[in-house]
Structures are given as structure tokens and as C-alpha cells.
């Protein structure tokens, strides 16, 4: 069996398509790895997943071409008379194409991981990303084998591969971070407080495996496989429903919470361990913002990075952990002076307060209206601020 697989693996369409996929995967992986990503494992694994899914329609086309060649060369008919049979030969073709596809995936993933810093947050939950990607690639190869067996024509591979490519690209674009139909979450950056949504990815994986099992049962292309096909179809339906009902958010908050805290002058800031570099400059930025606000607004004394829970009355410091800069932390500190409301009415007042703080800190970047408020006498400013603070903190209750 292994010998037969090896012979299939290193000849003809599987070899040509596989080598191309491997080379393209490595080249794209090297390119992708040069882009800025968060330290840690999730971002590079997510990029590898997107790459693997993007390339997988080509395996679908290559598999269809390979099976069409086997059929047109009468090799499938010949195999039908052997103990392995037609179904076994088609499965062998699937195994050869899928193995090349997985090699390409692994090569690309290794290049991406090799070009990024892994000294960040890594968790076992992140392994669901490559697992879902590999499941998707195997399924696409299987669909190609099935299509090639149903319609062994020279154009089947090219047309099916190109259509699958446009469908996968289109769905990725349309779904954005939703990732319902394909397991990629473009535009999702894994900040240190985020893990992939394990339930959603496992549901995806179950769906791909069930669909793969159905193709496996269908491949002999003859009557008699009815029970296996029905069972696999039920599994496809069940896992499809499961993938639809689980929480569709591609990310979930990391557990358990680990924090690093720093206190000075009655102000405390806590961050995730991977963002420890932001601790001291973050505290300095908060104190600068508090100095700008003065006693005109009540400000929190406890701050924590996004994803960490804090005591009542504390505020969240939201910054992009990919690139911690003084300017970004200062802006985050301004925004954290008043807890951000969750409704439009509150947000309008909150943005007015933010403009007022910016006008005091960086007048060059301030809105003219905020500068006009800043130029009012202190009493009028306090009245204006109190009205907006009340709206920002109570409008969404």
C-alpha cells in the first residue's frame, strides 16, 4: 500500500502540482513572514491558515486533472479489475495529492514561523488553526478527486480549480472576520489577550472530516456504499449545524488571566505579561493625561489592558500590542480617562470629552470646537464638561 502510494506520489500530476504548491507555499510564506505580526504564535498560525486555504483550490483542480488522466488512460478501468479496485485507486490518488498539499502547507507555515518572533503568547488552543487549515486542504483534494471521477474531462480540473479559487477568495472577502464557510479570519489580529475560537474551529474541522468521509464512501462510484454514504451525510449535516450554532466570533478571550501591574502616585496599571514593555510608558502616559484633565473630571485610578477584568470604576487601556509606541499609549491614555460607553448617545458625549483632552495635550491636533471650549473661562468649561460626562456615563444604562 505504501509502495503504491509512493509511486503515485512521485509521478505525473501529483508530483508536478505538488512541487508547484510546495514552492509557491514556501515563496508566499517567506513573503508573508516579512510582514509585521504580533509576537507569539497565533498571528503566524492564522497567516499560515489563510495561505493554506488560499492555495487549496489548486489541489482540487490538480486532483481532478490527475483522475481525468487516469480515466482517459484506461488505468482506472484496469485498476477496477485488481483487488484494490477503482475506489481504492481513487483514494490512493487522493492520498498522494493531499500529502503534497499538506507538505506545501507545512513548508509555508514553517517559513512564516521562522520569520516571526515566537517570544509571545502561545497556547495549545492555537493548534486548532493549522488543524482546521489541514482539514480544509484534505477536503478540497477529495472534492477534486470526486469531480474528476464524475467528469473525467481535461477541462474539469481547470474550471473547477478556478471556480473554487474565486469562491474561496470571494467568501473570504465577503465573510471578512466571520469565517463561517471557510476557516480563515482575515483582518483578525491576535492581540495577546486573544485565543482562537476553539469551538468554532473544531466544528469546522468536524465538518471537513465528515464531508471527507462522505467522499471516501462515495469514491467507489457504485451501488452498495449506501449505508456509509448516509451515515457520512448525517455527520456532514450535524457538523454543519454545529458550525452554524456555535459562537461565530473568530476569537475568544484568553484564560486564565495573568497580569503584570505597576503602581505610582495612586494610579495602577495592569497589562498582559506579553505587553510588559507597555507598563512603565503606559503609566507615564496615564499620569500625563490625568494632569491634562486636572480636577475638572473624575478620572479612574485603576487601569488595565484590554481583555483583563478590573474593579468597578476602573478603565480599559486599549492599544495595539503589535507596535507599542509612546504616541499610541498617550492616545490610549486619553481615551481611558473616561470609560468608553457602549451606545451612540453616550459615544457622542465621550468623543467631545476626548477632543477636549486632546486640545489640552496636543493643541496642534485638536478640533477647532474643542479649542474654542478650551478658551472659555474655567467655570463654563466645568459646566460643559459635567454635562457631557453625565451623558457619557449614564446614557447607556
Amino acid at each position, binding site marked *: 500500500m505504501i509502495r503504491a502510494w509512493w509511486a503515485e506520489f512521485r509521478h505525473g500530476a501529483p508530483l508536478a502540482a505538488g512541487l*508547484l*504548491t510546495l514552492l509557491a507555499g514556501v515563496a508566499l510564506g517567506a513573503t508573508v513572514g516579512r510582514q509585521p505580526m504580533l509576537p507569539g504564535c497565533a498571528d503566524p498560525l492564522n497567516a499560515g491558515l489563510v495561505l493554506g486555504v488560499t492555495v487549496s483550490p489548486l489541489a482540487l483542480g490538480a486532483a481532478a486533472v490527475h483522475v481525468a488522466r487516469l480515466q482517459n488512460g484506461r488505468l482506472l478501468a484496469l485498476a477496477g479489475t485488481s483487488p484494490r479496485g477503482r475506489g481504492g485507486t481513487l483514494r490512493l490518488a487522493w492520498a498522494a495529492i493531499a500529502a503534497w498539499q499538506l507538505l506545501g502547507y507545512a513548508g509555508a507555515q514553517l517559513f512564516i514561523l521562522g520569520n516571526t518572533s515566537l517570544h509571545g503568547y502561545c497556547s495549545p488552543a492555537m493548534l486548532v488553526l493549522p488543524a482546521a487549515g489541514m482539514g480544509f486542504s484534505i477536503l478540497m483534494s477529495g472534492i477534486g478527486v470526486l469531480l474528476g471521477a464524475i467528469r473525467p474531462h481535461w477541462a474539469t480540473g481547470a474550471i473547477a480549480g478556478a471556480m473554487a479559487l474565486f469562491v474561496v477568495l470571494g467568501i473570504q472577502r465577503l465573510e471578512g472576520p466571520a469565517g463561517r464557510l471557510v476557516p480563515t479570519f*482575515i483582518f483578525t489580529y491576535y492581540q495577546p489577550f486573544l485565543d482562537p475560537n476553539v469551538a468554532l474551529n473544531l466544528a469546522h474541522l468536524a465538518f471537513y472530516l465528515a464531508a471527507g468521509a462522505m467522499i471516501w464512501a462515495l469514491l467507489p462510484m457504485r451501488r452498495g456504499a449506501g449505508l456509509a454514504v448516509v451515515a457520512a451525510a448525517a455527520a456532514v449535516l450535524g457538523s454543519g449545524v454545529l458550525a452554524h450554532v456555535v459562537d461565530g466570533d473568530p476569537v475568544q478571550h484568553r484564560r486564565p488571566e495573568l497580569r503584570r501591574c505597576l503602581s505610582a502616585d495612586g494610579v495602577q496599571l495592569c497589562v498582559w505579561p506579553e505587553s510588559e514593555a507597555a507598563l512603565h510608558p503606559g503609566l507615564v502616559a496615564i499620569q500625563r493625561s490625568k494632569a491634562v484633565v486636572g480636577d475638572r473630571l473624575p478620572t479612574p485610578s485603576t487601569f488595565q489592558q484590554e481583555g483583563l477584568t478590573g474593579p468597578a470604576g476602573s478603565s480599559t487601556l486599549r492599544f495595539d500590542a503589535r507596535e507599542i509606541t509612546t504616541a499610541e499609549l498617550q492616545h490610549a491614555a486619553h481615551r481611558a480617562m473616561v470609560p468608553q460607553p457602549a451606545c451612540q448617545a453616550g459615544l457622542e458625549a465621550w468623543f467631545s470629552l476626548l477632543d477636549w483632552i486632546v486640545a489640552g495635550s496636543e493643541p496642534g491636533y485638536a478640533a477647532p470646537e474643542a479649542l474654542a471650549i478650551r478658551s472659555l473661562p474655567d467655570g463654563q468649561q466645568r459646566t460643559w464638561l459635567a454635562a457631557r460626562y453625565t451623558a457619557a456615563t449614564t446614557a447607556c444604562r
Partner: protein
Amino acid sequence: MSLRRATLDRLRTAWTLARGWSLLPAALAVAGAGVAAVLDPSVPLPAYFAPRGYAVPLLQLLTLPVAVTAVLCLEEPAHELWRTSDRPMRVIAAARALVPLALTTLAALPLGLTRAVTIAVVLAALAAEALLLRRFAGPGLAWMLPALHVAGASVFGVTDEGVQLWAWPVAVEPSPPQLVLVAVTITACLTAAHRRRRGAGHR
């Protein structure tokens, strides 16, 4: 043989020569490109490293099917036999492949000379890539290299800084370095693909 029958035979032969392996996919691709040139819609790409988004005209994406089907037009139904023909079959096949490329470029002309030149350049380069893979893996797999290039460029070729050098298939206005790279790609692919294929080939 009557004159009418001789004329019919000539027409039938001309149609067979014009049809080649299969004319329909190229005709459909060119028709699609024509419709895209008239309507000129933009398609947002799933650009992974450009959260602000990036869109290309649909016509630019349709250069992929046009280029691939144009290369498939080089094939003959009985490709072992044409070498014995006294007709200039290579020239006829090349002309057959050039027609879809030329028609698509002409369809892009109303959109402006710059757009038409961009489309022509991208078509030529993608067709050259398909020719390269046709040389090594047969016409059945020729589509894979340009498809990989377009897919990779659509997802990873655009960053917030712009279109990367290698992602010229999705560059609406290619930069001079990109044009140089395209020229190098065309030259390299055509040089490698020029050697005659051994044996009867495979589909």
C-alpha cells in the same frame, strides 16, 4: 468536385483550424472580459495585510481565465498529427492563441490607453507563466502557475504601503519596477517554454 463542395470543404478546414483543441472556454472568457470592460465594476480583494481594503477592476481579475484559455488554444485535437501537416500549424496555433489576448486588450481600450496597456501586459505575463507550466506539466495543469500567482497576490500582495513588487497581477497602475519584473517574467518564461516538448505530451 464541384466548386460549392470545394468551398464548403475549405470552410470546414478553416473552422477546424480555427477551433483547435477547444474554442469555447476562450470564447466564454473573452465574452466575460468584454462584459466586465463595459460595466467596469470593482472587486474588493481579501487583502490580508491591507485592513483598509483594496479593490481591482473585475477585468483585471478576468485576465487569468483569458490568459489560460488562450494558451489552451495552442492545442490541437490530434496533436501528434499536425507535425506531419504541410500547413504552418505552429503559426496557426499561435494566431489562435493571440486572438483572445488581442480581443480582451481591445475591449479594455475604451477604459483608457493606460488601462488597456496594463491589461495587455498582465495578460501577456500570465499567458507566459501558463506556457511555462504547459511545457513542463502539460496543458491540463498549465493554469496552476498563473492561478497561484493571482491568488497569492490577491490575498498577500497588497499591504497598507501599496501593491508589492511581485503582486503585479493586481496592480491597477504598475510601477516601473513592476513593469521591469513583468518583462523579466515574460522573457524567462518564454525562453524556458520555447524548447520543444518531448514525446506526445500529456493532458
